[in-house]
């Protein structure tokens, strides 16, 4: 099995997760990297991606794994056959599926355009409730791992998995609360036991 870190940038930020999976599959086919198939009636290539990125959010920290034996330079072969914006940034060989969808705990994002505000004061609030995509009320404070302004804009880390907070929703909240318009939202790193 090969685990790989890849980007989802440029026009690829508008691809849905299912379409992205198809593109990764086809990239591997075009690259001549043979991926093992699942068993059963509807056999499909064993490719595993981390949790979906919201549409419109870029990333240089997506992770995936493909059940394949490939002796050559995986990144070179992948990148020669991949669509613009979907590029392998690094890869490792691994014995078992790193299961990125479950093992990535939180991710770091950058964005510009949000009007500066006092981070300490905001994080000091007892609870801040927003309405998520399913219409449920959720307290976002425990889901924020880190939040700081840097020279280039805002950097923040949000939890994934069961405590997930969507970065685009978080930005919509910040826009409404503090003003400005988030631009160039980009996932730049992921944290978890199998990331590299």
């Amino acid at each position: 099995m090969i685990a790989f870190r890849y980007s989802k940038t440029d026009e690829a930020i508008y691809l849905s997760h299912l379409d992205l999976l198809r593109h990764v599959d086809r990239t591997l086919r075009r690259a001549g990297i043979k991926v093992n198939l699942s068993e059963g009636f509807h056999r499909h290539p064993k490719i595993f991606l981390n949790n979906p990125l919201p549409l419109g959010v870029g990333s240089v920290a997506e992770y995936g794994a493909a059940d394949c034996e490939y002796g050559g330079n995986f990144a070179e072969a992948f990148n020669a056959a991949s669509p613009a914006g979907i590029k392998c940034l690094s890869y490792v060989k691994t014995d078992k599926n790193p299961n990125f969808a479950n093992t990535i705990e939180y991710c770091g994002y950058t964005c510009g355009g949000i009007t500066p505000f006092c981070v300490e004061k905001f994080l000091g609030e007892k609870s801040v409730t927003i309405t998520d995509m399913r219409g449920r009320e959720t307290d976002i404070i425990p889901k924020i791992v880190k939040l700081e302004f840097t020279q280039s804009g805002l950097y923040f880390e949000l939890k994934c998995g069961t405590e997930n907070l969507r970065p685009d929703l978080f930005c919509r909240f910040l826009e409404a609360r503090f003003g400005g318009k988030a631009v160039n939202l980009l996932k730049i790193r992921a944290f978890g036991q199998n990331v590299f």
Partner: protein
Amino acid sequence: MNVDIQKLKNILLSCEKPARYVGGEYGAPALKESGFLFCLCFPDLYEVGTSNLGIKIVAESVNARGYTADFCYAPYRDFGAALKAAGIPLYSLGLKKPLAEFDMLGFSLQFELCYTNVLYMLDLAGIPLLRKDREGGKYPLIALGGPCAVNPEPLADFADIVFVGDGEETDALVGEAYVRCGGANEKFYDEISRIDGVYLPSRTAVNYSPDGKITSFGGTTRVKKAIVKNLDGAVFPEKICVPNCESVHDRAVIEVMRGCYRGCRFCQAGFIYRPVRARSVQTLTRQACALIKNTGYGEVSLNSLSTGDYPHLKELLKSLKAQLPGDVTLALPSLRADSFEGDFTQDARRISLTFAPEAGTQRLRDAINKDITEEEILKAAESAFDAGYSAVKLYFMLGLPTETDEDIAGINDICAKIKGLYNKQKRAKPLRISVSCATFIPKPFTPFQWEKQCGEEEITRKLDVLKRTLKVKGVTLSWSDNFAAKLEAVFARGDRKLSKVLCRAYENGCIFDGWDKEFNRAGWQKAFDETGVRPDEYTREWDENEILPWDIIDVGVDKKFFAEERKRAYGGKVTGSCLQSCKGCGLQKVCPAAGGEK
């Protein structure tokens, strides 16, 4: 000037499936501006348009001559409204260039119910809809092509050029003339009017009698369709782009043959794509291998109107299996029941198989020249069941000429026999049968072109007969919307008087008429009421001596042949395949099967 990307980004995320609108697909050529900028416009969604082979062939031929062929698809309502609100004109996906800045836009007409989408796209592009409002060379040439262009008259007032027939060369030849003549001047129109397959609606006048019937044509009175004689050597896109989001036919496509030997009397495609021309096994294998290598698709579809009639099918399947990667599956979407053999489909997942008996009794199948027996249908079904299929979809038509209630009741008999065959053996799953009924549409350039289309009441009654007589358990029945079928007949056989109806329907909000959930019956009815055009004028029986709106177009098949075939239909006589003997349809000189062109 190209569209403002930042403005575009601001609206993309407010719309469903933004990947439709951003371009940048894998395999899309890096386009450069040239002396002739052509945008192929598909009046339906991205997912539908990116599955179309015709526009890719035309683009390939234009690009091969050093010109520029870009693409644009109809945006769904949400994105269309967002574009208007943001003041962004409709643009091409490759160059991100407003459509109004191209030299020519080519709309591919696959289906009559996409006509309002042509107006929708022109409107979003800020281009006046009617030709008379575009004079002065400020706007691109508006061209139409595709199968519906054999009767372009309902859209004649909107178009500058209509491409009739094969598109491998004609569009590109017009591009060459455009560059040579320095634009769309009189010299250019004179030159292109001499090219086979080019119809200039402005150079043909249609004269009507007071009761609305055509009395004569003035100016150019006959336009021959373009025919590619050497299909095997014709331009074909072996490097195509892979759509950003899943398309309706998400696979590689090779065109095995063009045309059909059968001549089913209701089928327009069976006549307008004549003569039948086939590609060689060697060429098809090369094209399939190149497509798989370039796209990464896992399936190749062997397309034609009747792939089972391809004379070298077994050899082709053997060659493809030997040369394609082992996990690539083959799809044969247009197999006639009499050419079905279980081993043809061994690659595919064995679930559902579709047959089109079209009519419930042998008498009616003979009348429509379907030339298939019940025995052949049952043999094919049994062969499919033995190959592992557990679901069958059956296509029928209601309202066919000479149809009686006994013919409709015959649909139940076929279902019962198919079910009986399945249950002869113990099988893991129960059989699922889906019966799908479409309303018969009398189309131009068929032996039934003069026929009356059954009215809505009569079709509803026929459907009731079907519902009452279809008693086999486990059969699901679906049918098409009567009014949409009527509209399709009206525009298939329409004339220039319909342009005002189209304009009004578009103003009434009618777009995406081919989509059930979008179909706006009230908007259409209002459009007919407001313009005083009676749709029944177009669905009535036409006299064989009347001048037909599409008489201006010559697809190569004699009108007399159609009339004779119509007589044979009423006599219940089967004409049979061109492979058995030449029937003298009029294309003998260029037909390989008739010994014309080899």
